[in-house]
């Protein structure tokens, strides 16, 4: 779907976030980027979203750049707007009339299980529900590519597991390509079809691990030998990446 070739990103303060990164994202995959803090995984995501420009290298889309949805680490909802209006925002910015947008907003909210909360305000919702609203907002334009930047990092484990399950279901249902940034090895193995492990200073890819599990993951997948084996492999790669950093 997209190929990043020799992409480097240096911030104005001189920090090199990414150094000659080569990364392909394939249609329909669920790709996780894991790595220690400062390895540039968020930067890679922001480059894909067009929120920032690479210092050098190129990002080549297969065909026209697709519609992209982005879920931030925080729910980033507008506190003054109802759940409906928050999800309506991307359509509103595209100048879609409210009436024409209503079924699409309702559908997106129904997909995340919040159909009954359209008139609620963000502060009336729990952390997990706010994140669901954020996901609904990212989905309302029916993006081909969904980028998620540690979306569940601030949530408790129970909520996180539930949202993981729901996300797997959604991605399968919609056939959306997902690039997911996380700190958690277990989360990445559970969700992904492919994991890319990154190391920091400068940000680079150290290993790519395919996860040949079933297309639709369920709780059972967490107990299979394949899951355990992949977790071990990913952990080792991550530790190697972090150890390399300690020597510097």
């Amino acid at each position, binding site marked *: 779907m997209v190929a990043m070739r020799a992409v480097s990103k240096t911030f104005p303060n001189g920090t090199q976030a990414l150094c000659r990164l080569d990364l392909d994202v394939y249609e329909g995959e669920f790709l996780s980027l894991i790595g220690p803090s400062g390895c540039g995984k968020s930067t890679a995501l922001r480059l894909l979203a067009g929120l920032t420009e690479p210092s050098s290298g190129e990002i080549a889309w297969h065909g026209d750049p697709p519609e992209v949805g982005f879920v931030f680490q925080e729910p980033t909802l507008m506190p003054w707007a109802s759940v409906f209006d928050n999800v309506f925002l991307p359509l509103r910015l595209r100048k879609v009339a409210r009436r024409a947008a209503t079924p699409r907003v309702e559908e997106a909210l129904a997909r995340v299980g919040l159909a009954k909360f359209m*008139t609620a305000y963000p502060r*009336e919702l729990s952390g997990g*529900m706010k994140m669901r609203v954020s996901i609904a907002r990212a989905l309302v334009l029916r993006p081909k590519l969904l980028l998620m930047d540690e979306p569940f990092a601030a949530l408790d484990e129970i909520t996180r597991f*539930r949202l993981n399950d729901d*996300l797997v279901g959604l991605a399968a249902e919609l056939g959306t390509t997902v690039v997911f940034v996380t700190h958690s090895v277990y989360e990445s193995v559970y969700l992904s079809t492919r994991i890319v492990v990154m190391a920091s200073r400068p940000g680079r890819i150290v290993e790519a691990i395919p996860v040949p599990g079933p297309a639709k993951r369920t709780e059972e997948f967490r107990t299979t030998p394949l899951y355990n084996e992949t977790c071990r492999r990913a952990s080792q790669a991550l530790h190697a990446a972090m150890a390399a950093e300690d020597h510097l």
Partner: protein
Amino acid sequence: MSALGPAESLAAPSEAAPGRAWRRLKPHRLIEIVLPLAMFCVALAIWEAIVRINQIPPYILPAPSLIGATLVKDWGVLSASLVVTLKTTVVALVLATLGSVALAVLFAQSKWIERSFFPFAVVMQVTPIVSIAPLLLIYLESSTAVLVCAFLVAFFPILSNTSLGLASADHGLIELMDLYRASRRQQFLYLRLPSALPYFLGGLRIGGGLALIGAIVAEIAAGSAGKGSGLAFRIVEAGFRLNIPRMFAALALISLTGILIYVTFTLLTYLMLHRWHDSARTRGS
């Protein structure tokens, strides 16, 4: 996700919550109103008692009952002055609000405009209004001068608060706007304006109080020049005549005006923010 209900639906549905909260809070609210009122009455009673027991003459300290009686007796003069002061304050505040919001929006368009003009606004603010009033009284007709004074003091807090508000939109939301390629106009309308609302209302509350102070100060300055007919002028005039009860009566009306302004804007803030902003939130909701 499709089949699941809201997984962690701990929050109550929005419609039911406020009603229930109100009913639960009601006895508490009642005490909140009754207690200060009772204290106020007690203070008045003590005042009355002190004046009567010590037989303090009214030209030194009038009893509250006498002030009340004066208020009724002089209502014709005092109410006319009240209308003048109130009108000055309101017109000044409306003009200050329109002007400062327009200027804040202009400042938000470009850093350079802001940097060129902001110092002027600061100079206007830090120069004590009492010192400008005599000058204004020379240049302008006295009622206009009073209006300009009230306008000047109310202008700055609204301007600086609104400017701050327009500049403090959430960074995540700005990124979101960028992601969806929102135009400048859209970003302003959907993000910066609503973000600025709580700040603007805070400025309005300060500006409202200050407009009254500005009007009073200017009236005193004008009154000493033998002109004007606002409440502050009544105080000065009654002072010359040693009509102390009337001074107190006019003072009470000024206080009431201030309270009225405060209550109005507190209510307005509550109505506009209570559904989403932390400042208007009751604890535990």
